[in-house]
């Protein structure tokens, strides 16, 4: 229902992704690189929400495992997203356990937030980066289960049952967590500008500015 267009948009690429994965499983290096480029942004976004600035390192570890176990994988493009997200999640949890760092540690977040806007120059990119910072901040301020459900659905682009499988929870619980998380995000994002109905106000305003 509140799934929005994002997962569906991602799913539009899943046909290509599935084909690339199948070729990669047959040993096609270029196909593996293509699959990497399709999956990595979502994976990185998810990890950024989990481990902050260490997301790149964790993603690197995850990809080593993905490359190693690719022959074991069975499924299509959407399945590959779920499979890789599961691996990335395990690596992230390992990382957090090793570091004894809370997933929403303030220091890491601050660092991360400060780093992000750097490379952007144009007006549009600046807006983009502000929203990146906001989104990251807000998502990581959510309770863990809500944050993960939101990230897997919105950023990785998994459907409900896949999110549930990655998290090892029942689909109903995951759906509820995602719904609550998104609702809270929307409310908070609207906080500075508008009292409520945040997104409906926020969207057009941003649009008008950037045009």
């Amino acid at each position, binding site marked *: 229902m*509140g799934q*929005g*267009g*994002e997962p569906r*948009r991602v799913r539009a690429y899943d046909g290509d992704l599935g084909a690339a994965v199948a070729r990669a*499983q047959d*040993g096609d*290096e270029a196909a*593996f690189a293509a699959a*990497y*480029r399709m999956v*990595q*942004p979502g994976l990185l*976004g998810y990890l*950024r929400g989990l481990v902050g600035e260490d997301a790149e390192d964790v993603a*690197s570890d995850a*990809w*080593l495992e*993905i490359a*190693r*176990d*690719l*022959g*074991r994988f*069975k*499924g*299509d493009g*959407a*399945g590959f997203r*779920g*499979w890789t997200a*599961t691996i990335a999640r395990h690596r992230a949890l390992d990382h957090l356990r090793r570091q004894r760092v809370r997933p929403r540690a303030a220091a890491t977040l601050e660092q991360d937030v400060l780093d992000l806007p750097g*490379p952007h120059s144009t007006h*549009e990119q600046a*807006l*983009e*980066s502000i929203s*990146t910072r906001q*989104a*990251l901040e807000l*998502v990581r301020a959510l309770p863990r289960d809500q944050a993960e459900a939101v990230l897997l659905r*919105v*950023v990785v682009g998994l459907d409900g*049952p*896949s999110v*549930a*499988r990655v998290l090892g*929870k*029942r689909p109903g619980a995951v759906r509820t967590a995602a719904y609550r998380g*998104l609702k809270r*995000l*929307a409310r908070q994002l609207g906080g500075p500008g508008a009292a409520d109905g*945040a*997104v*409906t106000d*926020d*969207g*057009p305003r941003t*649009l008008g500015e950037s*045009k």
Partner: protein
Amino acid sequence: MGERLSGEGLPARRRGHPGGTALGSAPAGPDTGFEARVGAALRGDGSGGVDPEAERRAVAAFRTARDSGQRRARTRRRDDWRPGRPRGARLPVRTTLSVFLASLTLGGVAFATMGAPGFDGHDDDGGGTGPPRTPPPASTAPRQQSAGPDRTAAPSAGPHHPGTAEDMRAHCRAYEQVRGRGRALDATAWRRLVAAAGGEDAVAEYCAARATPSAQPSHPGNGTAGGTAGGGGGGSDHATADTSRGGGGSGPKAADPERAEGKK
């Protein structure tokens, strides 16, 4: 629906895109455009793709794995994401439950199979004797563990199970100690012993009969003196040792039969 979709997806990705004017449909829901925007932001859609160095490392790992022949590894359950199994998350629960139920069933069958001859044998042994034999059902398993040896040993006096015979001798010795002490004899072990002997009065005789034959295999050197009449040094020593070991503190009545048997 489709019109709404196009309204959500595009403006969320590129808010400056002309297609974004279709955002008039945004009020459709608080989560829609926002959800897409959060996704785009966290994915870094605006920051120019993936890090080529990271990609190079991943591809190198892929090459290594491919060249080392690990591509044909076995698919584990967690690697199977085929869409044919949408309830994958629930499958393990169901599988676990099935396995559990199956093990219960098989265990019950095995238990019942074990129990059947035990009851028969018991009836053979102590059929019609006086002592009350109404043990709780839970005690059936331990009961026929020793009921089996009883049955074989009593008629043939063959020491096929020295370990169990040893147990029985220990029971005999202990029996003499607890006899006359209130309800101790109600315990399952004693009831079993009494039932095996064929009555409370017959226990002493029963125990005496059991003490000797099992003494033979424990003294192989004495083997030529077959039967209880042998009474060689080994055999009688053993019986005496048994009596002295177990009968300490028991009345003379307790030790008598065994001693008599040992001397015979």
